[in-house]
């Protein structure tokens, strides 16, 4: 104790002043006048709507990425006191004074600023000198496109920050002495940031895989080292880099789902059970419905397929045309379709085939079970759901489904359907509202009731076609139907029944589904939902990014020429491409020569060189190549993560050249110094040149703007006065 209390109490701190300086500069470039265009800028219009929905806690589904990114943006909005009452309808709309623009944008900007010191530290961890680190930091600092992307409510800067953090902390872990246990904190941090990166955008997954690859190689070496007991070490790595990220990824969804508990515009995409778990919406309707479907029940049947659109089995007082456009004949019976809106014509009554009446529920109700044969009566028209060997209107290979009309033309009614509950293992043999997924098998032909997904022409009011298809041909969710609205019918007479159908259902029961079921459904829907393919005015192809063929106009002042564009710093861009080429060339030469036994580099240096390549060139590859295979609409900003890796590569490669390739003659070194300073100067100059387009001020004249159009393919806007 005496030793602990010994005075004086001394704190020795080492501060890397360069690091502090670049951090301050980064903060200044990213955070100054953050609320300046007091208007919606580019994709803010997209992310903003989700932020609003978070504030109102309304459920939504966004196929572009997992929820963490949106939640981070929403956090900023929450801290700034945003109440969600702003309509994000067009780019350029002015924010009202009630919205704190600064707080909406501050988190991404902060992440963008922190990337700069992080790159500095990462270069050090790659075991290059402070000068290289400074070089990388400067390149990142003066990159106009990164500044633009950081300063608005967008997610790229957050993604870049998290990915860099993951690599930095992993390398910190790897470089730390083996004895220290503290290094596992770094490993854990690396796992956490990987999970966060994947949670922000799916692109983060590729960086995560790269990191796993690097970690695997290291672990593989470790296994080969027989002096160590590697079991614990391997387990630690697996836990930190595999288990924790997966759990965290699920946790983001847990947060997402527990935050959003009200029904909203995207409900329709989800299953009835999911919808029923949200407040308002379907749960309002379904609350208190009887659970078990019985003979005499009045039900609406919803197709389990959400393609092309969720809809309910429907019929109406209109018959199939006698002849279709192509001259084929039909049965001319009543149309049965699938209709995407709630309607009184969506109601069907489940009838026992034997009973003559049977439109009412007995007391006690007799539930319908798996394997039972039923008839379905359309509530409003009292026609029986029927199918027969007549080709369906749009899908002639399948059978037509109709409401049976007795025309006395030797076409007997074939209106028996067998109930086949496909998820009976999970639920029960009894047909349950919302929970059971039912296939209706036609007894005479053993065809299955199916939503074909094709729209009918005008005679069918553009509703969706329903057919009966042979079991083995059809598969997937287009076969399943579930009961969504349900009540026990109490009236035998058609007139009374009509009145009953028009009245809303209400009784009270509450159904909850587990988090896992919700998570899996949401995840599947996010991956499966396809957006309309459409090209955007500013979209571009991946190969155009390398040469910065296109720019993106983010914002234009309502009256003046002040505008913001996503344009990179052309000089740095060139430097990055050059270093990528140079590294590949150098690596090829080294490899061939080493294979022939010429060791140009000492082993330690070779390791360093390889590691640089794995992280930087590998990082570029995994963040660029996948886009070549994607069929999405792509934009220049998708390239920014890949670009950051190249900025990390350039100074390090230069240092390598300087130390190992250049002869030690003074003139060479001087020449290199001059070249480097010239390049840095021109980087700075071009940064300054494009600043007006980066920050949106000062306003430039049309002539000046024309001067900034360095490439023909850039779109820079001028107002005609």
């Amino acid at each position, binding site marked *: 104790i005496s030793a602990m209390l010994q005075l004086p109490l001394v704190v020795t701190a080492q501060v890397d002043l360069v690091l502090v300086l670049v951090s301050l500069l980064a903060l200044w470039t990213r955070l100054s006048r953050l609320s300046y265009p007091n208007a919606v800028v580019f994709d803010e219009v997209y992310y903003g709507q989700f932020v609003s929905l978070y504030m109102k806690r309304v459920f939504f589904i966004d196929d572009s990425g997992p929820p963490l990114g949106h939640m981070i943006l929403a956090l900023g909005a929450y801290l700034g006191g945003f109440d969600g009452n702003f309509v994000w309808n067009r780019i350029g709309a002015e924010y009202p004074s009630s919205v704190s623009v600064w707080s909406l944008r501050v988190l991404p900007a902060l992440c963008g600023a922190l990337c700069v010191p992080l790159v500095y530290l990462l270069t050090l961890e790659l075991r290059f000198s402070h000068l290289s680190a400074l070089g990388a930091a400067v390149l990142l600092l003066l990159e106009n496109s990164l500044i633009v992307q950081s300063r608005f409510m967008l997610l790229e800067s957050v993604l870049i920050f998290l990915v860099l953090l993951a690599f930095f902390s992993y390398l910190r872990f790897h470089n730390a002495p083996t004895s220290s246990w503290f290094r596992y904190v770094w490993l854990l941090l690396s796992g956490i940031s990987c999970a966060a990166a994947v949670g922000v955008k799916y692109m983060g997954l590729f960086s995560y895989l790269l990191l796993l690859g690097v970690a695997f190689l290291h672990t593989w070496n470790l296994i080969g080292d027989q002096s160590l007991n590697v079991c614990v070490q391997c387990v630690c790595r697996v836990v930190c880099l595999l288990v924790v990220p997966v759990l965290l990824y699920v946790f983001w969804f847990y947060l997402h789902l527990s935050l959003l508990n009200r029904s909203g515009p995207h409900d329709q995409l989800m299953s009835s059970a999911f919808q029923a778990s949200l407040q308002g919406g379907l749960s309002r309707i379904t609350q208190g419905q009887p659970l078990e479907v019985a003979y005499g029940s009045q039900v609406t049947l919803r197709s389990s397929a959400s393609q092309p659109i969720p809809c309910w089995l429907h019929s109406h007082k209109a018959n199939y045309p006698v002849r279709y456009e192509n001259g084929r004949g039909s049965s001319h019976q009543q149309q049965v379709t699938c209709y995407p809106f709630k309607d009184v014509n969506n109601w069907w009554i489940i009838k026992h085939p034997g009973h003559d009446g049977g439109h009412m529920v007995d007391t006690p109700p007799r539930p319908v079970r798996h394997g039972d044969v039923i008839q379905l009566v359309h509530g409003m028209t009292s026609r029986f759901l029927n199918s027969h060997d007549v080709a369906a209107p749009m*899908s002639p290979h399948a059978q037509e489904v109709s409401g049976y009309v007795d025309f006395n033309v030797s076409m007997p009614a074939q209106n028996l359907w067998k109930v086949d509950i496909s998820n009976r293992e999970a639920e029960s043999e009894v047909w349950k509202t919302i929970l059971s997924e039912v296939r209706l098998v036609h007894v005479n032909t053993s065809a299955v009731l199916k939503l074909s997904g*094709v729209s009918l022409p005008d005679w069918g009011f553009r509703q969706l076609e329903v057919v009966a298809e042979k079991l083995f041909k059809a598969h997937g969710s287009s076969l399943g139907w579930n009961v969504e609205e349900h009540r026990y019918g109490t009236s035998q007479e058609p007139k009374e029944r009509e009145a009953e159908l028009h009245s809303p259902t209400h009784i009270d029961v509450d159904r909850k589904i587990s988090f896992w079921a919700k998570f899996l459904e949401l995840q599947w829907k996010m991956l499966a939902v396809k957006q309309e393919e459409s090209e955007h005015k500013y979209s571009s192809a991946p190969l155009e990014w390398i040469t910065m063929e296109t720019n993106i106009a983010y914002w234009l002042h309502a009256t003046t020429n002040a505008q913001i564009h996503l344009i990179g710093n052309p000089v740095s861009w060139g430097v990055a491409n050059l270093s990528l080429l140079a590294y590949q060339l150098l690596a090829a030469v080294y490899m061939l020569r080493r294979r022939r036994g010429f060791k140009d580099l000492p082993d330690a240096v070779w390791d360093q060189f390889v590691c640089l390549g794995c992280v930087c060139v590998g990082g570029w590859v995994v963040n660029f190549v996948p886009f070549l295979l994607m069929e999405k609409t792509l934009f220049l900003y998708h390239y920014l993560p890949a670009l950051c890796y190249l900025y990390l590569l350039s100074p390090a490669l230069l240092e390598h050249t300087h130390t190992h390739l250049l002869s030690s003659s003074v003139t060479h070194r001087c020449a290199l110094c001059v070249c480097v300073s010239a390049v840095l100067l021109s980087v700075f100059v071009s940064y300054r040149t494009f600043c007006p387009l980066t920050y949106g001020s000062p306003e430039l004249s049309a002539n000046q703007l024309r001067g900034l159009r360095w490439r023909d393919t850039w779109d820079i806007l001028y107002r005609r006065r």
Partner: protein
Amino acid sequence: MFSFLMAKEECISQRNKTEHSSILRNRKNIPTSLKTSQAPFTSVSKDKISQTAGHSSEDDNQSSNGSSAQLFTRRHGESPVKVLLLLVVGLSFSTRLYKITEPPHVCWDETHFGKMGSYYINRTFFFDVHPPLGKMLIGLAGYMTGYDGTFPFIKPGDKYEQHNYWGMRGFCAVLGSFLPIFAYLILLELSQSHTAAFISAILLIFDTGCITISQYILLDPILMFFIMAAVLSMVKFNQQRYRPFTASWWFWLVLTGVNLAGAFGVKFVGLFVILLVGLNTIWDLWRLLGDLSLSLVNSRIFIILLIVLMSDVRGSTILLVFFLAGGRCKALPGSSCWTHPASTLPLRYNICSALCCFEQKVGMIVECRVIIANLINYDMMMSHTLFEWSLLFCLASGPGDGFFSSAFQSRLMGNNLYNASMPEYLAYGSTITVKNLRIAGGYLHSHWHLYPEGVGSRQQQVTAYSHKDYNNLWLVHRQDDNNSQSGSPDLVRHGDIIRLEHKETTRNLHSHLHEAPLTKKHFQVTGYGINGTGDTNDLWQLEVCGGRKGDLVKVLRSKVRFLHRATGCVLYSSGKTLPKWGWEQVEVTCSPYLKETPSSQWNIEDHINPKLPNISLSVLKPHFLEILLESHIVMIRGNSGLKPKDNEMNSKPWHWPINYQGLRFSGVNETEYRVYLLGNPVVWWLNLASLGLYLIMVAVASITIQRGFSLGPKRIEQSQVLMRGGGLLLLGWLLHYAPFYTMGRVLYYHHYFPAMLFSSMLTGITVDILLNSADLLLQPPYSDWMQRVGQMVLLLSVLYSFYLFHPLSYGMTGPLAHEPGSTMAGLKWMDSWEF
């Protein structure tokens, strides 16, 4: 960091020494040298290297003593080889040739390939998306067996009656019978184990899918024959690695090339096996490069292998030559609408060109080109009687020349551009067609339909269309529109402002500041106005690329651009296909970016002006390689254009390994004779399981080695076989399977069969080594019993399942499987099977 790589380096240099010494000691002992040139997993520290080296030398002694012969039946024991091989040959031929003539009607795709075989016999031109070799062979087989080419092959189910169809089927079945034999030989080379070889041969022999697909007139057995033959000769060639330039070295090298050429000449899928061989060669080169005992300067091996690699790369180019010679006819109109008996391509010339291409593989490029040039000339002389105008009618309905550039078309006899005769310079008042210069670009086209609501303004569509059609015709007008002057019309010059009027609909080519339908950065192009009266947005400035003011516009030869006067954009064809409302034609836009690309350049193809004299024109002849490239791009587009129709059941790649759903070859109803292409489920599921098992075993083996546990020589040999032989097969499986995930074209179950061959061979290795490792669990006598029992169980279950499922291949009648009284009752193990 990355000390692993460093260690690898050391390990490799060490290894090379041992390898070298072993070569000196016993050059012919291939297994040994294989063994010592172990993968880099072997060792990390130096003492371990010596350990491994020690093992291998020990192993050397053992194997030369033959003491491990009881573990593996070695190739020293000659008699079992012959017995087993004979057994495999007998079984495989008898299963394939059994009931070869049943059913006596056209099955499935026989309707295509049989028909094409007939075309070769009849010497009729036709159009197809596959390269020609397979169909030529089918034709040849039919010809040799007395089929006269008169059967029409109209649709599946047509009875053959008196026609001699068995020859073509038998030919395919014979080629298909070689597959198990090749699998046996390949595995014998890769694993040195008869058990492994026999297992995979048995799997293939008794797989109902392989039998079915071999028994009909299809390209697949021919393709798979060449694929397997290529792999076999590659493996054999690898064995000759230490005896360069011997006769057998050359033999296997040339044979590899021939088989690769064959595979690629049958279907484009052959590309994957070329890739496999290419990767193997690269790996070989890398290995040789690291062999410091070979001097690079003097090493002929290195240079020769480099040549081999080059010829692999060039292989595809060469095959394109081949393709062109045989498949040149496909540039002519589709057979469905027009056949021209006079324009024949003699069969022997095709075979000749095929042979010369094989020779070219070893370097005779010049001669081949001469022969092909002669071929083309010969054909041109033969078919000089052409009727040009009937072509136009024909092309409106079928696929044809319109896909190719004007220059290409001018080389095809039968085309209206062949020896074209038309006014030389573009004039006002002429009727023209305008063709885009992109590869496979279309004609500027318009029709009565309007753009739908929401796509720019609702004016008339303007598209690019690849087929020749009256709607491609445009009239050239002056901007002030008075084309009623008499006398000889004025010529159009560079920089003139013109108006293009669509002949059928009398709308003007028009553009305005609306977004184009797909390429949103560009402006929409429409047809506007009526009877030629429009507005100022109808004016286009015509520029000849590289021209000066006042230059005339030469028909066919000049590249021109159309600049829109009002907005300054240039007429552009983006190459994107419009949705249904645009009849899936190609989008035409007006691009504000004035960069010169083929997409924004056009040429005037047809030019009709009765007031001007027609002059015989020689079109700029395209370079030989340009023709190659173009014909292939058109073919590949045709291939990827095979999109599934709306109602068609589309097979997904993930269906295939699990044997999810087969293909109906013949018959649907209970009354018909049904053949159903479906793999033997036991075999296929075993393959699937052993893929997983293989990965686990490799992981275990490599971790054990990396961790430096001392292993017996037998284990080391096993892990060698597992990693090298198995790795090669796994790569083959991946290369033949994974690419299908990225393909947009319509896919069928039978596309999996080449991959399935590799998968079955991998199963052979995996199962054999697994059974051999029984001694890890049990003591010696019991482990041997266990091994025997395992092999027996495997054999019996495959045989029994074949007995159960053989009606799938050899045909069945009566009720369907899910109905009572069916012969296949209870065998419908998956709902998705349709028999």
